[in-house]
């Protein structure tokens, strides 16, 4: 990069997160001051430093002083983790990673809470009375959503400081750049963009979905790219958390995306939708926030809701297969135990194919694939090309497991 040669660092070329100002601003994006941006920049760089400079040291510690001390071979990833937590390098990396996450939450919450009134007013004006927002005042939150605050996010996805408050999702939206070091692209939708492209490439030109259901859609980061890729389709985004849906509709509208309806519901029981009424059921980075009790219900609902010939796709980090080294499995469990993602560890150890078959999909109809975030590579770091950053469970590359319902 010739144009960086005049800086204080001489002629080293830059490889890292873009400036926060490269993040896309939709109409309800919180305002950020110069120093708030600088704080997010630091946090993104800090996460990048932890994953590229310190995390490799954990595997070196494992190879040089942890595993050699063990008398019998490891049998489970939990044995590996129990030894890792005694190692000083793992402790420092973990303590810094946890602290960086807590600082990121504080930074993002400060940004959104200080402008709560204005943000809430704007979002209400955009969504009140809009039939594409269907909230259920009597809704009981599933235990999977409210047992613990996911990724150290106080109030998780659902909490409202005042009725209809959306500062929670606004914080999630404004700070995800810092957690991922910009790997998800301008609108943090690189995963969804990749899914849409994958579907077009792998399911052929004759796959023209008219009705698409997104499970656990959150504030819609990854469902809007589907709505854009299939502008004539009707998209239904279901989530348990009211604030995510309200913010999601406002965000979509200001981005000019009009074909998504946001519905509050528990995706384990979707009796409001008729049998065989969807061409495509999608979930993105969602299954790890459910439970063994609800997953079969979700898979069975999916099977019921799909039209014959319709497809379901779940996008997730890879499962802990037999071929995955136990060290890698233990590292991938980090977010489960230390970043409030408790079901992550249990979800990743099961045989998803088997669970899909038990829900009624034929083994021959299962679909497998992989996607990496698609971003503007001139500005954002590209996970597909990035070999330096493994970052285990946080890498912007996922597996696709799904099925086509027999016609």
């Amino acid at each position, binding site marked *: 990069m010739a144009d*960086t040669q005049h800086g204080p660092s001489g002629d080293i070329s830059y490889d890292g997160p873009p400036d926060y100002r490269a993040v896309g601003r939709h109409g309800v994006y919180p305002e950020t001051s*110069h120093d708030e941006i600088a704080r997010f920049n630091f946090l993104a*760089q*800090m996460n990048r430093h932890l994953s590229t400079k*310190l995390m490799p040291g954990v595997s070196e510690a494992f190879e040089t002083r942890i595993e050699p001390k063990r008398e019998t071979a490891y049998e489970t990833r939990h044995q590996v983790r129990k030894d890792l937590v005694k190692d000083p390098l793992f*402790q*420092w990396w973990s303590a*810094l990673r946890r602290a960086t996450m807590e*600082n990121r939450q504080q930074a993002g919450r*400060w940004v959104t809470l200080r402008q709560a009134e204005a943000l809430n007013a704007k979002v209400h004006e955009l969504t009140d009375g809009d039939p594409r927002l269907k909230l259920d005042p009597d809704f009981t939150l599933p235990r999977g959503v409210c047992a613990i605050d996911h990724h150290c996010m106080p109030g998780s996805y659902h909490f409202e400081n005042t009725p209809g408050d959306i500062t929670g999702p606004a914080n999630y939206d404004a700070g995800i750049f810092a957690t991922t070091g910009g790997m998800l692209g301008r609108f943090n939708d690189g995963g969804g963009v990749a899914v849409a492209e994958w579907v077009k490439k792998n399911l052929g030109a004759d796959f023209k979905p008219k009705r698409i259901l997104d499970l656990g859609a959150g504030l819609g980061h990854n469902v809007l790219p589907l709505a854009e890729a299939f502008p004539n389709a009707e998209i239904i985004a279901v989530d348990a958390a009211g604030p995510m849906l309200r913010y999601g509709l406002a965000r979509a509208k200001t981005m000019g995306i009009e074909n998504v309806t946001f519905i509050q519901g528990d995706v384990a029981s979707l009796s409001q939708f008729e049998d065989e009424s969807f061409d495509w059921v999608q979930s993105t980075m969602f299954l790890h926030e459910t439970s063994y009790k609800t997953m079969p219900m979700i898979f069975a609902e999916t099977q019921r809701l799909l039209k014959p010939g319709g497809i379901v796709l779940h996008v997730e980090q890879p499962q802990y297969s037999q071929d995955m080294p136990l060290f890698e499995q233990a590292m991938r469990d980090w977010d489960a135990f230390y970043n409030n993602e408790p079901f992550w560890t249990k979800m990743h150890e099961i045989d998803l194919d088997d669970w899909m078959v038990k829900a009624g999909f034929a083994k021959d109809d299962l679909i497998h694939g992989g996607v990496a975030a698609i971003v503007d590579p001139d500005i954002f770091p590209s996970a597909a090309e990035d070999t330096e950053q493994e970052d285990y469970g946080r890498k912007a590359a996922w597996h696709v497991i799904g099925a086509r319902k027999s016609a």
Partner: protein
Amino acid sequence: MSDIDPLKLAGAKAKGKRPWFFEDADVERVMNITLALMQEVAVVRERLDTVERLLERDGAVTREAIESYTPSKSEADERGLMMQEYIARCLRILQQDREALTRGKEASSEEVADEFARTD
């Protein structure tokens, strides 16, 4: 006035028992405070960089100009590098811990002194 107190709520604790990694939790508390200070110095450093660039460009600086400043791609890269250099400096001790790991057993100065004092 809104009922929301941003300062109090921004730093609220997330639900779920917090994991601690160091044997002495006080070490981890001090590390957390140090990291927060490191972050705030980074913020000041970035602001100073903005001020310098505005002064170079305009010969004057206002708070409004600071708020609306957007670095070009090459300026952003320079600032990114500056931040990486800064973090590497602050976390130097951990880099060295990592290097020590892969270097195998190294002699201490006491051992080397003894070696140098031998005449046999």
